[in-house]
């Protein structure tokens, strides 16, 4: 397992090594030292920076678990709205304190370890997963100033650290000494290792466009590249700083595709429907955390939702302009809220998908990854390379052609959908949103009609 991961990483590193050496940015001044000298000058030179680092780390470790508090409530409310319910309403106003109450309950629950379990690994697994989930946040730029560390290999660091989560999952499944847990763990391992590849390749597309692996650098590369958007806005009477033309997703048709490949794969990476096989409750009871209860279970839960937010924040940073807003001429809205807003939008889409679609079978899951997503990703990389040969990064022609191709793609997609809409019953039309395979649907409809006529 670990070897496989390593090989994958080495291949990835080899692929991008030439670019990264050119584009590697100098790591910024040692911020810990500068803050320490400013505020903690009375302490010895070696102690100050360490204290600052500990303070920052503590802040992150305590703030990240607060995210799931919000996300779990959001999930419950969103699912309730989709399912014609109200969701939690009793605990606190509008059920706002529900997750807090759940958390308190989990803390006070009895700490159970199955007698046959491998006790050391059983205890260690949740914290390994939690550590990796929190560590990912260290490299995500929440705004110009809120960034723990601007690594020159930021996105590479995120990829590798999130791969370790698979090991924690296997550890939990193995240590539980339960067959259902082991099933969940094996499924999870296969799934995470497979879907790491399209994720890595999609990110590679972005790296090829931006020529840097630093997260801050990728955000900067999506700022003020094209003046056309600004000109159009000025013509319409709006003053803007940047435009969505700068966003990586619209830069070329290939990054547009890469965004969807990345988003789809990241849903699989965080084990959510339709790819929630590792914890498929109707098949595997609860997957790898079947035997966990109390606070250890809560730690899994926190890590899971922290991951969900992390992959969405990464998607926003890589493809949707990161913390940069459109109207922030004078930092009108802090970057923190812009990035969080974009991420929450993506999280909402994930929830929407989760509460709409059924689950794939394990062979279909692998088919999707190896037969569709990975070839598409390779095509993206090839295309991006060719795109780079023909266009400069800031050429107006490139964004024009890119927009043309993307809009043709979107229009033809909408055309297919609306074309089949006209031939459906009104009730089907209202309920169709979110379903794919509309041409098949039409065939089915007509065949049913035939059947009932005979």
């Amino acid at each position, binding site marked *: 397992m670990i070897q496989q991961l390593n090989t994958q990483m080495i291949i990835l590193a080899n692929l991008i090594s030439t670019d990264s050496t050119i584009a590697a940015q100098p790591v910024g001044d040692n911020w810990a030292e500068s803050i320490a000298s400013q505020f903690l000058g009375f302490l010895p030179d070696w102690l100050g920076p360490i204290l600052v680092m500990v303070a920052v780390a503590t802040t992150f470790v305590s703030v990240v678990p607060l995210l799931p508090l919000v996300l779990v409530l959001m999930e419950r409310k969103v699912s309730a709205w989709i399912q*014609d319910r109200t969701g939690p309403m009793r605990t606190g106003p509008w059920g706002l304190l529900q997750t807090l109450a759940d958390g308190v309950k989990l803390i006070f629950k009895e700490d159970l370890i199955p007698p046959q379990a491998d006790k050391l690994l059983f205890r260690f697994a949740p914290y390994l997963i939690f550590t990796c989930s929190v560590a990912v946040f260290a490299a995500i730029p929440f705004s110009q100033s809120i960034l723990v560390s601007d690594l020159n290999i930021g996105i590479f660091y995120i990829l590798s650290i999130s791969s370790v989560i698979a090991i924690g999952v296997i550890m939990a499944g193995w240590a539980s000494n339960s*067959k259902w847990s082991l099933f969940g763990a094996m499924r999870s391992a296969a799934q995470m290792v497979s879907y790491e590849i399209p994720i890595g390749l999609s990110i590679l597309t972005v790296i090829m466009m931006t020529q840097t692996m630093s997260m801050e650098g990728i955000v900067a590369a999506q700022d003020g590249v094209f003046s056309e958007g600004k000109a159009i806005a000025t013509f319409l009477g709006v003053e803007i700083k940047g435009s969505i033309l700068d966003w990586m997703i619209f830069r070329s048709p290939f990054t547009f595709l890469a965004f969807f490949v990345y988003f789809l794969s990241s849903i699989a990476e965080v084990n959510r429907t339709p790819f929630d096989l590792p914890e498929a409750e109707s*098949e595997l*009871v609860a997957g790898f955390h079947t035997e966990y209860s109390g606070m250890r279970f809560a730690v899994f839960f926190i890590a899971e939702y922290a991951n969900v937010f992390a992959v969405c924040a990464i998607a926003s940073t890589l493809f949707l302009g990161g913390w940069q807003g459109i109207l922030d001429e004078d930092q009108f809205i802090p970057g923190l809220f812009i990035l969080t807003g974009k991420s929450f939008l993506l999280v909402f889409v994930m929830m929407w998908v989760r*509460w709409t679609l059924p*689950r794939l079978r*394990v062979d279909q899951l692998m088919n999707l990854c190896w037969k569709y997503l990975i070839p598409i990703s390779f095509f993206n990389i090839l295309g991006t390379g060719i795109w780079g040969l023909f266009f400069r990064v800031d050429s107006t022609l490139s964004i024009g052609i890119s927009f043309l191709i993307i809009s043709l793609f979107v229009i033809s997609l909408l055309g297919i959908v609306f074309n089949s809409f006209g031939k459906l019953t009104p009730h089907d039309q209202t*309920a*169709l949103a979110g379903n*794919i395979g509309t041409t098949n649907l039409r065939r089915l409809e007509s065949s049913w009609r035939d059947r009932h006529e005979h």
Partner: protein
Amino acid sequence: MLAQSTAPEETRFLELKPFSDEMIVSMGPQHPSTHGVLKLELRLDGEIVREAIPHIGYLHRCFEKHAENLSYEQIVPFTDRLDYIASMNQNWGFCLAVEEMLTTDPSKFESVPERAEYLRVLAGELNRIASHLLAFGTYGMDIGAFTPFLYAFRDREKILFLFEKLCGARLTYNYIRVGGVSRDLPPDFLDDVSDFLDYFEPKIDEYNALLTNNKIFIERTAGVAVMDEEMTINYGASGPNLRGAGRKWDLRKDEPYSIYDQFDFEIPIGEEIPSLGIVLGDCWNRYMVRMDEMKESVKILRQLINKEWPEGPIMASMKAIRPPEGEIYSRSETPRGELGFYIISDGSAKPVRVKVKSPCFAALSALSELSRGLMLADIIAIIGSIDIVMGEADR
């Protein structure tokens, strides 16, 4: 692989002998998607099921033995507990058998009053919709879609509310009695049913768009666990399982009991759609037949409501239920297939023997053959598609 249990060999409840790469897994009786308390003993090679043995009896309540010590009226509430999803149809099945025995002596019992027959069809078809709704919802949940489950329960709730109005109970009705039904229509009840049908009929199309035609759902169910016509008949499985295999067989049409011969409705059957990989008798067809049957039930109910309802008693007048000496096998079409009651009477108020021919048991016995060589996730899809209720299989 894993440390085996240290229990001595003879105390283990295992019948399978695994090869070295294989694993024995007990699925159930406490498992989220075994639809009650079914235990499956699986011999697994990774994700692939080499052998599956269903173990039943976790919900055995000695219905048949109990029945020997109870009078016929007293057995009716016990039949509620057979298939507790469609209690009305279970009541009806038993009452049909007893009434058939009683009619052999016309001096004591002639027939069920016509108004009672109307009420029986009303209750039976409403319960058929409620039962198929539950089958649809839980099947969605088995496949991994949670939302259809709550939609189905939302609509089933409306039917239960109607039943509560009709007979005071929501799950075990004891409504259809030997010789008639227990209560007449509450005020404005037919209007309520009509409102429900207006609300519900479009919802079926919505569910089809949400789940039935979903690409992932079709991938998961099309061509999976094909139970063709011959195999279905050999196992004695009936109802939607048989119709999904392409056989037009429905007792309401082929051996019409009650007043079913007065209604115009279709028998939906399975169908091959090669472009989607859908073949006769696969999970998708078994499921789809239930969706179509709900539409047909709505059709029957609409015709029933618009009929001229006869006035008169709802219960035949008799002194005591003492069927003449003899034996009878009578069957009726419940949502899960043909429910048969075999009753031997010695002329007293209590039957000598009651045997239930259970459609769920027949369908469940095919599970072992159906699941061989498929994947673990497919087992769940099969259990959902044959739509078993353990209360009836175990009795």
